[in-house]
């Protein structure tokens, strides 16, 4: 909105010249972050009360042998708070005509809706496992992946140049390693499913998923800024993506909303993000990574998500289904530490530190090319 005001009313000859500030991505990013944070702080207590009143409370399920009764009754679906904060702030500060931005906002809405539906079913059926079936969730994620791939790879719809859209870039290499063309659809679909589920799997402790998501948003925001600037991208030997810089504002809004949510989600949590938040965060961040062609960087920056998802996959499919034994004490890996007697808040803080290291590594790949 502010960007639109600048474009409509900017006049260098009078006081309206101040509107030029809204032209700058840096100014709007700061504004978006602060706005999202404040929105969360203001809306948060009301939303939490509302969620409690309507009975939207966590349906605890078996986490191995651990006592989970202390968590029973905590409101869930706090992801709505993240979405309201981030998307509300983005509407105010982003140039919503920008295709990068609306595609990511669409991702947030789609995955947020999917997660909310899952949460609501769990609440209605009073069971932590009786939400949407795995098949339905995968189908919805694949559908979105195909839609994004379609928009991204069809020249008239794509926000990037056609020759760039189908290329696969990886860190440390200046040039695309593969020209996949339509084969890129597969990469996009798989990546979309993986990114949203990774965050979903990680979300099992107070503050555990949101902080790595904040770091990932920060890293992707930095990349979007660089790739959206012709001078910086040329200097660092990246492909220039006009308009991608606008994603920095959205990332900043996401970051602000994440910090705002953490205010309530910090141990002991007053609200959980639920699938409404975890799927939406994963979906949005994954879509951003696809749009700016930094899928591998997403996996480095979100290393915590990858480790969590990998541990869960290994435990479920290799250990319990194939070998008939556990590989880890418990999975996802954070439950292993909890099972060993390490306190929840300590595990969360240690994972935050690891997430910060992963984020720093991801940013370092920018220069090591």
């Amino acid at each position, binding site marked *: 909105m502010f960007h639109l005001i600048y474009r409509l009313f900017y006049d260098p000859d009078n006081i309206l010249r101040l509107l030029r500030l809204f032209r700058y991505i840096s100014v709007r990013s700061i504004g978006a972050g602060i706005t999202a944070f404040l929105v969360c702080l203001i809306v948060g207590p009301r939303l939490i009360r509302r969620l409690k009143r309507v009975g939207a409370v966590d349906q605890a399920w078996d986490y191995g042998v651990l006592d989970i009764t202390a968590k029973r009754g905590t409101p869930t679906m706090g992801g709505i708070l993240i979405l309201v904060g981030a998307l509300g702030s983005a509407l105010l500060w982003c140039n919503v005509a920008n295709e990068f931005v609306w595609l990511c906002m669409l991702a947030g809405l789609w995955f947020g809706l999917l997660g909310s539906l899952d949460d609501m079913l769990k609440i209605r059926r009073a069971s932590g496992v009786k939400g949407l079936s795995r098949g339905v969730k995968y189908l919805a994620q694949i559908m979105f992946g195909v839609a994004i791939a379609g928009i991204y790879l069809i020249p008239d719809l794509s926000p990037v140049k056609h020759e760039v859209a189908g290329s696969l870039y990886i860190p440390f290499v200046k040039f695309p390693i593969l020209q996949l063309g339509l084969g890129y659809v597969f990469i996009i679909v798989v990546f979309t499913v993986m990114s949203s589920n990774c965050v979903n799997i990680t979300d099992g402790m107070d503050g555990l998923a949101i902080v790595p998501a904040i770091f990932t948003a920060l890293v992707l925001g930095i990349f979007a800024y660089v790739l959206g600037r012709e001078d910086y991208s040329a200097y660092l030997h990246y492909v220039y993506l006009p308009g991608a810089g606008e994603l920095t504002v959205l990332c900043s809004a996401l970051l602000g909303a994440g910090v705002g949510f953490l205010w309530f989600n910090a141990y002991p949590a007053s609200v959980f993000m639920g699938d409404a938040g975890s799927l939406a965060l994963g979906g949005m961040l994954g879509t951003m990574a696809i749009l700016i062609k930094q899928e591998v960087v997403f996996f480095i920056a979100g290393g915590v998500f990858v480790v969590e998802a990998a541990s869960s996959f290994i435990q479920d499919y290799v250990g319990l289904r194939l070998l*008939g034994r556990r590989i880890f004490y418990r999975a996802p890996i954070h439950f292993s530490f909890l099972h060993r007697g390490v306190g929840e808040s300590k595990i969360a803080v240690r994972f935050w530190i690891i997430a910060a290291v992963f984020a720093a590594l991801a940013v370092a790949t920018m220069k090591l090319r």
Partner: protein
Amino acid sequence: MLHRLRRASEYSKASSLLEDPPKSREATVNAVESMLASRKWQVRNVGVKLTGKAGLEEFLPRLRQIVVDRREAGIVKRNAADVLGLRGGGDRETVDALVGALKDLYWEVRSRSALALWRLCGPEDGVEDPIYEMLFGSKHSEVLKRPVIYVDDYLTEKSFEVRGYAAQALGSVGTGDRAFRALVALTTDENWVVRNQAAVALGELAARERDFYRSAVEWVERLDVVCDGAISIFPIRESVNHLTALLRSGEPEQAQIRDLYLHLMEGWHRRS
């Protein structure tokens, strides 16, 4: 594909019996028999669980074989150890099978076998040596002769879960100086859960063998109680739990209820 579907259907049929067991004992026995003979470990696992749930003692010999079978899936052996611990009755064959399972390569089998021994055995059963061997290796006799042992220096058991249950088992089956030394050593474990189990086991041992009483008290008082703490302090929950227990007991004394008030002047976490 067809093979996978068949396997899934065999497993789901078996699982449904676990939720809703057959009405007659004979039908249950037949179901368990066919499950334990299945080629799929997932189905055999359900058979083991159903044996425990229905209390079918005729299958205990089969469970004793399972628990020491090197080729059996770890989860099946683990559950067999659990069932033997709960339903095995403590006869020599069961105890020997569980002792044999202490050497299993999978930690959950070792830990559940130790737990089962704690449930079934006492000091007269003479099963402590295999527990020492599991904890300290083949040279456990020499290790346990030393005056003070710091467990990290000699421990061969890597799993905290096994060490914890082994300590618990020693509380029940341990005898004399060796058990005392082993438990004292385990009170220096890096994991607070193990230290906790060892301290309680030390108490159990001391209550049985009064010669160690004073030393046990000293060691428990010196216990490193610093822990990462998996359990939060929720005073209101604690109050409600106590209050519910008291009220359910029928005739609570007024003084007991009064104890639940928080001492607001000295911090919310203190009881008055």
